[in-house]
């Protein structure tokens, strides 16, 4: 069986006038199913670019990105949307909940785009909310919740479609350290339950919660290995 994520010499260039910005420079790595990987780097290191590509929000300029063995670079917008919908659960720094919808409706959004019927949608959303301990609040709006609770809703939303990959972009960035730890604990328990989790962060202490670290600088992979290796440079908080 093939690896879940395979980057083969992935490059991403941005053209700004006459300048070409190299955001990813021949990045190669493989992530197997069931891993908990942190992609670490300072701003400008190319980690956001990698996240966008892993999340199928963007495609590589050069190189190949295989997700579940499928070459994502050759897919059209609609097929990318389908992959995002079915295979990837996003967790964002700013939670990115829709303010006009209640919690259940927020969690239902991916299922709605997947074409799941109304009754089943609601049942699965309530179940996902229950899994993060927020079932009793499903009628609330996001702005009635604390940051930690909102992030738990976004985790429920990421899980509801049963994706093969959880992609968390600075999930603790907007939270205080205590709630941040809670969120990380949830991610770890998800990983222990067999899910693949990819965590994007600039913070080494948070990256240390993962099993494996891929460190990026200037668009290149400078370290790829287990967490206990001493960090070479990079941010420290």
């Amino acid at each position: 069986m093939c690896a879940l994520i395979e980057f083969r010499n992935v490059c991403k260039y941005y053209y700004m006038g006459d300048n070409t910005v190299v955001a990813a420079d021949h990045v190669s790595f493989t992530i197997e199913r069931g891993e908990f990987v942190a992609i670490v780097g300072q701003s400008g290191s190319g980690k956001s670019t990698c996240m966008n590509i892993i999340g199928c929000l963007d495609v590589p300029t050069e190189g190949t990105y295989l997700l579940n063995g499928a070459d994502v670079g050759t897919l059209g917008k609609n097929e990318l949307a389908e992959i995002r919908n079915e295979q990837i659960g996003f967790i964002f720094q700013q939670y990115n909940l829709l303010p006009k919808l209640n919690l259940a409706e927020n969690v239902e959004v991916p299922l709605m785009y997947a074409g799941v019927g109304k009754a089943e949608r609601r049942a699965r959303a309530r179940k996902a909310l229950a899994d993060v301990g927020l079932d009793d609040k499903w009628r609330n709006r996001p702005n009635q919740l604390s940051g930690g609770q909102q992030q738990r809703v976004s985790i429920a939303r990421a899980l509801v479609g049963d994706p093969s990959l959880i992609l968390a972009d600075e999930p603790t960035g907007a939270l205080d350290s205590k709630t941040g730890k809670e969120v990380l604990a949830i991610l770890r328990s998800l990983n222990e339950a067999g899910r693949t989790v990819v965590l994007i962060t600039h913070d080494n202490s948070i990256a240390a919660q993962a099993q494996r670290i891929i460190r990026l600088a200037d668009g290149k992979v400078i370290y790829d290995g287990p967490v206990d290796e001493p960090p070479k440079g990079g941010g420290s908080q």
Partner: protein
Amino acid sequence: MSVLDSVTMALKNIKTSKVRTFLTMLGIIIGVAAVIVIVGLGNGLQNYVTDSFASLGTNTLNVSVQSRGATRTLKVDDVYAIVEDNSEYLALCSPTASVSGALKIGTETITGSTVSGVSEDYFEIRGYEIAEGRGLVYNDIATCAKVCVVGEYLNRAYFDGEAVGQYLRLGYLRLKIIGVMAQESDDAPESGGTDDCVYLPYSTASRSSGRITGYVITARDEKTVTQSKNALEDALFDYFDSEDYYTVISMSEILSVMTSMIDIMVGVLAGIAAISLVVGGIGIMNIMLVSVTERTREIGIRKSLGAKERYILEQFIIEAATTSAIGGVLGIGFGYVLSAAATKVIELAMDEALIVTPTASAIVLAFGISCGIGVLFGFLPARKAARLNPIDALRYE
């Protein structure tokens, strides 16, 4: 994702910004209401004109003769002969004679009254009824009797309702009033109206100073008015050997000309009203563009969660269409209220019973157009939303 989901989502969004949505709808509401009222007004006008003409008799043909210069003059007997010869198509006939000389009752001179020399059949042709006394009879015509029938207005205003047996003067003629016509108009009889009239035998009129100016002839059947007209024209052409000395006008032709004129007028006015629908549509487009910018982040989130371009497009188009459809429904209600108000205003201001009647076709059309405008003007903003790059949209603050 089903269309129902999109409509639910659209209604939810509309509910969260009621004032803005209402202001956006206003253009559509006014446009739809304007179209409905204008078409309803045209419809009411149509009914009013048709009713008025029906009371004149749509099966009558008016012949006017300008025989001056012709080699032959058309005599009354000739016309009767023509009617007789074409009895398949033509039924009743009455010459109409103008009368010169002032109308005087007692010492008072009366102006504005219709004074006409007619035959005994004239009342039947026009559908007038005699309320008191008797109408003109053949003998009055044959003997050039100095008699006349007056309308209800003259009866009431100058004879206190007891005109029969009294006299009036017409130039140097002294005419005995032998009958009073039943009231014709729906409102109180007034000077210059249908009830302000004097009818005397045409023979009496033409023997004094009057002149026969034309003929009123009825068609045998209302359905064959055109054939009747053709038959009459053929006979007159045979008589004069030229088209220059007579004209035949049928009331139903005048009615159809009037009807098509009203149709054109209403069409033009409705077209002008429809411009406001277009303006309303542009208003919707404007607000939708603002809304897309405001909701860029929402669009980014939805896209990251797997919304295809089609779903985003659908969502915004349905939102625009729902907005304008609700506007259309409100506009229909508003149009009905305005129609009722217009009917009242016309009744009060002009004393005429013109009922502004919204037509079903106008309502369906206005509603259809308003939905169509929503889709049409929603498309551009929706496409803008659908084409947003998810990464940029997610980063948008």
